[in-house]
């Protein structure tokens, strides 16, 4: 326990983000805790609306304008949540970068791509103008944009979706961050480009010794790219562990459901929506286990008592009253 704490770059503790809509509290992120170690790739999976994007935004202080964010986010021993926006400027984009989910809307349509890369360099490095330009070209080249030097003066609408995603990656990597928060960097793209971008991210991470939190819908992607995985359901983490352990023998029925919905004969990258039923509304969560209405193993205790995320083995945790039976089918 001690050693893993020392190694970890980012420690998220009881992160809770609440929005208020029409006077009702809506808990998009509900007390999640996890660590990210230097250089590792952590997968964050869950259905649409489970709070993945809001978790990432909360970490770098982008969610608090819209709701309240509580808990602790330790970055190199310092709690980012206590810092003001101004104090966060030297962390954002330089030590921790984020790639947004939507490549089509995340670049400013009125500014050239070159400017949008260079402004990051201007904020975080001492490079002069020509050096910034050279670095911008180098970055576009690294992320695989052909004719990089001639494209600096182009505007986002002159790039395809995949190319915009690459531009966003180039911007995020501009100042060599130690941690990259990648919010579904590939879902908006078609399959071949998805593969390219993932491979690109992985090789860059290896070369720069950069850790990644990779948000995805897709357990196939997790299996291919991540070291550890955290499964999110209705704003809470329901299972965490090494990818090998979790995929081999999940300890939560929801993870099992996700896993079963990836057919073996079909290549990965198939979206997994086939767990029957829908997630509960965030402003009307059941008293007990939030997964109970969809769970095939539900018992009386599940309805009255909410199971906490607790360690049940060597670095594997589950938020289920019956973790040992949950994954029997896969391991059998």
């Amino acid at each position, binding site marked *: 326990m001690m050693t893993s704490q020392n190694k970890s770059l980012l420690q998220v503790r009881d992160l809770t983000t609440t929005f208020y809509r029409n006077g009702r509290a809506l808990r998009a992120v509900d007390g999640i805790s996890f660590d990210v170690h230097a250089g590792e790739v952590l997968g964050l999976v869950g259905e649409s609306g489970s709070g993945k994007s809001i978790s990432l*935004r909360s970490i770098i202080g982008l969610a608090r304008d819209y709701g309240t964010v509580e808990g602790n986010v330790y970055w190199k021993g310092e709690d980012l949540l206590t810092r003001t926006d101004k104090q966060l400027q030297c962390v*954002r*984009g*330089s030590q921790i970068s984020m790639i*947004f989910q939507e490549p089509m809307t995340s670049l*400013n*349509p*009125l500014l050239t791509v070159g400017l949008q890369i260079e402004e990051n360099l201007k904020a975080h490095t001492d490079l002069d103008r020509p050096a910034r330009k050279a670095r911008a070209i180098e970055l576009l080249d690294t992320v695989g944009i052909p004719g990089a030097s001639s494209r600096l003066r182009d505007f986002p609408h002159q790039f395809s979706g995949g190319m915009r995603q690459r531009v966003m990656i180039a911007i995020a990597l501009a100042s060599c961050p130690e941690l990259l928060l990648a919010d579904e960097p590939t879902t908006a793209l078609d399959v071949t480009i998805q593969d390219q971008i993932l491979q690109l991210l992985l090789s860059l991470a290896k070369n720069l010794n950069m850790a990644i939190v990779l948000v995805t819908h897709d357990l196939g992607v997790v299996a291919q790219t991540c070291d550890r995985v955290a499964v999110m359901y209705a704003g809470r983490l329901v299972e965490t562990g090494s990818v090998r352990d979790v995929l081999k023998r999940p300890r939560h029925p929801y993870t099992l459901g996700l896993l079963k919905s990836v057919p073996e004969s079909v290549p990965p990258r198939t979206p997994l929506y086939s767990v029957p039923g829908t997630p509960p509304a965030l402003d009307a969560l059941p008293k007990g286990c939030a997964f109970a209405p969809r769970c095939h193993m539900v018992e009386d205790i599940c309805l009255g008592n909410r199971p906490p995320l607790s360690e049940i083995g060597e670095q594997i945790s589950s938020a289920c009253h019956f973790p040992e039976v949950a994954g029997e089918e896969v391991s059998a």
Partner: protein
Amino acid sequence: MSSLSYLVSRLMQIIPTFLLVMVVIFLLVRMLPGDPAIAMADAKATEAQLELIRQKLGLNEPLVMQFLYFVKNTLSGDMGTSILLKAPVLEVIAERIPVTAFLTLYAVCLSILIAGPLAFVAALNKNGGLDIAIRTGFQIGLSTPVFYIGLLLLTFLAASLGLFPVGGYGATFLQRLHHLILPALTVALYTSAIIMRNLRSAVIEVLDADYVQFARSKGLSRSVILGRHVLRNAMISTVTLLGLSIGALMSGTLVTETVFAVPGLGRLMLEAIFARDYPLIQGLTLTFAVMVSLVFLFTDMVQAWLDPRLRLS
């Protein structure tokens, strides 16, 4: 370049508008009961003078020919003689254009100066006390008739306190700024309310946009984010609205010039209407149409300059 072809295509689009305006102006006089020549001439005109007008307007020929004469005369700068001022319509109008142009531009600048910063302050304090105060203030401005505001300003600031001139139009640029401040302010109160409302919601919307959140995640300073990523994007819709409200601005000018005795086109128009000075009414209508079209064109240019998606598609 593509910017040039954009300009040309926009200029081409103005032509149909003009034709339509010409038709309306042409019919205006023809629809009056009786002889158009009498409408176009002084009441004391002799039969010989009337005959001259008939010939010039081609009144003895078919309607289509009359229209062509009308277009030809107008294009060659001959819009007839003002009954009221006994001078060529073109001359009378040319003399007054700078006054109204100055007043309108002045009002627009004032409203941008008033509304721009306040809209930003309101948006950044969304639903806070400051926001509510600003919005309420402008709401009152918006719901009060222009002439009423004008009269209030005139009574208090000009007549009672003697801070500003009661009317007229100065000779030098600075004098004009001084003379026209109350009328410009009167017009600006209305337009600034429109700008404020639109710009405030545009800023609020842009602040939430993914690209602004992404810019924040890059660790940019607040001033760079507001100045580079928010301002320009929020301005686009406001520029459009400002262009579209030029009609309202012009009618505001009409009333304001009258209240403040400013010798501009608006006051001329009212005088022309009261005197049934048809040649002058025709000329002024056409002038207003030209001005509105130019403003639309200018708005489009500004938008294309702001938004590369318009410029480069």
